[in-house]
């Protein structure tokens, strides 16, 4: 049985829909902008990648505002009993901010992830099982692997994965405190990279077994691996052992060798250590350089959402035969030469994609993607 991404949609700083994201990446222009939102706070950076035209209703969270507009565009037609997995790191964190800044402690409980899960189920009229899945910045990638497992073991024919994380003062202040933010738009895999830019995104994907497919799909989930470094709470393992094991597990599950990978959708945060760790893992698994790309110079680091957004772009790359450039890349890091590119790279036939994510707590997820299927 093949497990495919049957339907999907996404909202990023490039706009609403995968076309906007794809065209934005191909344009080579970043959607990261300076913001006045935190001007009085004195943070390390004023750069941010926020979704344009997002209308937030009074009392609503940005995460819910994203989902309220994004989900009904396509999800509304699915079977109400479809299992839902919601992937987020901080979800509706504004309720904590409001509780403390406005002296309204009663609001804090609304920041719990299962509250957002209930809101999403209500929005979509879903009455099936619902799960919150969180694994730091690998959350949505890990959620996709769980959905694929549920389908493979016959628990469900289709599983809906929804992911979101918004830019908030809470998160921005935290990354500023950790000295992780770049003063200019992030430049993944660049020799002069100096940190990440925060972004926000929401996305959903309906995973399906190919025998239950009712539309064409762009990508199949062939294998995956989830691991932990067990080295440091925020920094990656400089020896890349955890990510290397995740890649090996994904390849083993798929029955493919890493050398067959045609291109890589990398996490690529643009922090010095994380990018170096990824490149070490890639060069250890795949001896001959393959094109890699990171979305984060274009749409920032979208936290929990980044894994699923990468998968959707990787699917588009396979169907269009083109690997997008890494936006913001000027001079590749010496270890990224021949891997990271400042212009799109054409793909051969029957490509095989690897998508990787890593996050706080040393988590790593690797997913191997193949071409899609026809209904």
């Amino acid at each position, binding site marked *: 049985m093949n497990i495919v991404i049957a339907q999907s949609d996404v909202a990023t700083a490039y706009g609403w829909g995968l076309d906007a994201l794809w065209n934005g990446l191909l344009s080579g222009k970043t959607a990261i902008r300076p913001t006045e939102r935190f001007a009085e706070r004195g943070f390390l950076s004023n750069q941010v990648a926020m979704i344009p035209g997002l209308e937030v209703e009074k009392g609503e969270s940005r995460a819910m505002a994203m989902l309220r507009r994004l989900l009904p565009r396509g999800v509304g037609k699915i079977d109400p009993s479809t299992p839902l997995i919601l992937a987020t790191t901080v979800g509706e964190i504004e309720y*904590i*901010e409001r509780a403390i800044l406005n002296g309204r402690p009663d609001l804090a409980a609304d920041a719990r992830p299962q509250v957002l899960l209930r809101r999403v189920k209500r929005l979509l009229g879903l009455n099936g099982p*619902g799960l919150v899945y*969180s694994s730091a910045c690998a959350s949505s990638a890990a959620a996709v692997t769980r959905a694929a497992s549920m389908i493979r*073991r016959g628990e469900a024919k289709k599983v809906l994965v929804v992911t979101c994380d918004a830019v908030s003062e809470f998160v921005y*202040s935290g990354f500023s405190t950790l000295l992780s933010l770049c003063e200019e738009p992030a430049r993944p895999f660049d020799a002069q990279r100096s940190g990440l830019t925060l972004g926000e995104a929401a996305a959903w994907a309906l995973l399906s077994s190919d025998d239950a497919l009712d539309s064409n799909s762009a990508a199949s989930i062939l294998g995956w691996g989830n691991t*932990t470094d067990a080295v440091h709470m925020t920094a990656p393992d400089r020896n890349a052992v955890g990510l290397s094991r995740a890649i090996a597990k994904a390849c083993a599950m798929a029955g493919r060798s890493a050398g067959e990978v045609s291109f890589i959708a990398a996490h690529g945060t643009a922090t010095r250590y994380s990018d170096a760790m990824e490149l070490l893992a890639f060069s250890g698994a795949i001896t001959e350089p393959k094109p890699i790309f990171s979305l984060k110079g274009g749409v920032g680091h979208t936290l929990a959402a980044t894994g699923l957004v990468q998968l959707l772009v990787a699917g588009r790359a396979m169907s269009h035969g083109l690997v997008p450039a890494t936006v913001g890349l000027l001079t590749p890091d010496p270890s990224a030469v021949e891997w990271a590119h400042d212009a799109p790279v054409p793909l051969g036939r029957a490509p095989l994609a690897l998508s990787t994510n890593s996050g706080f*707590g040393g*988590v790593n997820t690797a997913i191997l993607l193949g071409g899609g299927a026809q209904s």
Partner: protein
Amino acid sequence: MIRAIAWFCADHHGVFVPGGRSWQKPSPALSPSAEILALIGRPVNYYARMTIESRFCLCAASVALGATGWRESANPEIGLACAGSDGCLAANQEYFRDYVACGRALGRGNLFIYTLPTSVLGEVAIVLSLTGPSLFIHDDVRPLPALARHAQQLVADGEADGMLALWSDSQAALCMTVEAGDDDKAISALLSKPDSSPSRLARDFQLMVQQV
């Protein structure tokens, strides 16, 4: 199958092993001490920095791991899963309250790093060298049985040789050791009780061990 369930709360800790050696004892104080470090059984560099919930979880996971014998096999890949109705709500409030109180310009990194639902797992993984998946999995209807089931599925899928499934709050932590195989019915019934708070379950398991 759930091979053992360990618990740690302020008053008592122990482990229930169906058909095996179960025990329970008064708990040492959670502050850094030789007694706590002996219970954990591994070097801990940052114990004093950890949140109370992280300390409960680390102690419960250490007791659970000691009851499994997993360490005796070569390089077992052990993963971590956790659930909890509040996620990391208390840690989130602590970070942001402190950030506001300090002038709303610079937060504290050592508070910010606990603001993810999986932060607790990161600490446990580092101290106990656990390299399998680390996941927060919260089911909206029956969170505790679902946590155990998902941990079992991760083992069945070959993602880990075993899983530690943690159920915790600011009062207590429970840690189930999960392997492939069928469940003990008595344990399954306990996990499905309406009041399945970590403190309540710790008391239930303490009573079960006393009866054994």
